[in-house]
């Protein structure tokens, strides 16, 4: 009997038969409407790789340049993403500093580099040796990547400071703004299901 022709909904456990899907198709649970799997196309891999590479470049820019600069009476202060982590640390708030570093620096950079580790060899028809461990890790770490929340946080702080001083958005702010949709597009094009099937065929 072919267990691989069946799928159990991860939210309500209902068993359902897998059916082949069209390119942009989505299979939803008959009972609770959870997304079970998505249809795949041959360009998925190319698109995922392109978006992730774009994401990498924007992420580097977002980290290399100041997000915003502040001017009060000829005193100028600029802050990059790393500066926010550093300032909290020297302020004696190591715990908060680590939380910010983990959600805006460590997790996103791990996510982007591990995706590239998977996608580049797959693009050339090879399956990287640590695929299983990396997929498992990516799934676990995903909720902790909070770039979009951080972007909203920057915007709120800009409004708060507007009343006190002259604020000037930096290059990194624009990079952040472009990074969010690109990361969403990369996640949309990346289909772990395909990789699992590929591993199945090898085994």
């Amino acid at each position, binding site marked *: 009997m072919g*267990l*691989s022709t*069946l*799928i*159990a909904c*991860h*939210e*309500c*456990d*209902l*068993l359902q038969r897998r059916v082949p899907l069209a390119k942009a198709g989505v299979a939803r649970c*008959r009972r*609770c*409407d*959870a997304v079970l799997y998505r249809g795949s196309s041959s360009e998925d891999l190319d698109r995922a790789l392109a978006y992730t590479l774009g994401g990498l470049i924007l992420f580097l820019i977002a980290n290399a340049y100041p997000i*915003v600069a*502040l001017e*009060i*009476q000829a*005193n100028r*202060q600029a*802050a990059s993403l790393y500066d*926010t*982590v*550093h*300032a*909290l640390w020297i*302020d004696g*708030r190591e*715990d*908060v*500093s680590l*939380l*910010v570093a983990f*959600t*805006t620096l460590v997790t996103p950079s791990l996510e982007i580099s591990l995706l590239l580790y998977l996608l580049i060899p797959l693009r050339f028809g090879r399956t990287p040796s640590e695929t*299983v461990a990396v*997929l*498992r890790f990516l*799934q676990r770490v995903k*909720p902790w990547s*909070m770039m979009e*929340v*951080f972007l*909203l*946080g*920057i*915007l*709120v*702080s800009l*409004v*708060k*400071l507007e009343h*006190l001083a002259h604020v000037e958005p930096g290059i990194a702010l624009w990079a952040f703004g472009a990074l969010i949709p690109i990361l969403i597009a990369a996640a949309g094009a990346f289909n*772990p*299901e395909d990789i*699992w099937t590929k*591993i*199945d065929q090898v*085994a």
Partner: protein
Amino acid sequence: MNQRPMTARQLGLCACHTCGLLSKWERGHVDLTCPRCRSHLHLRKPDSIARTWAFLIASYLLFLPANLLPIMHTNSLFGAQSDTIMSGIVYLWVSGSWHLALVVFIASILVPSAKLLALTFLAVSVQKRSQWDPIQRTNMYRIVELVGRWSMLDIFVVSVLVALVQLQSLATIRAGHGAVAFGAVVVLTMFAAMEFDPRLIWDPQDDAS
């Protein structure tokens, strides 16, 4: 095939929580691993309800300090000032940015409290093996999972302000104890939501049918 829909558990099958592959579930076997990805197999998330409760109780304990302690201290030529989450929202409101005040209110006050209440309700209902509208409860769980991360908003606001406003004699902003408690509440409620297994909502109904 019979007409009545069956769950994997009723057929003695277990889906891998990492890769989704179905395997035969053997009762009493504690060390089953997925043949494809080698993750440990569990019929349901282990000790789901007990762990959800543990994280929930810890979140409740920190909820008051998170909201009552100042999350930041401002020192400027105009004097010193301490802000809690709520006073920061009031400040945004009176300074004319009512739309941002609303955003911060939703992210920092409404979402964390609603999330605690919703998860408590879900945990109680599952523990009582309630059969009340499983679709509604599953949707509730999905919303909780989706919006929880946005509560980190105020932590990020404080961290940007601390980094920017370091103008020695003119003005400095420092993070307060409330920021630690608030960050902890966000992280703990995220863990609580992750430990909760939505399939438990459906089990009582499936057992009854």
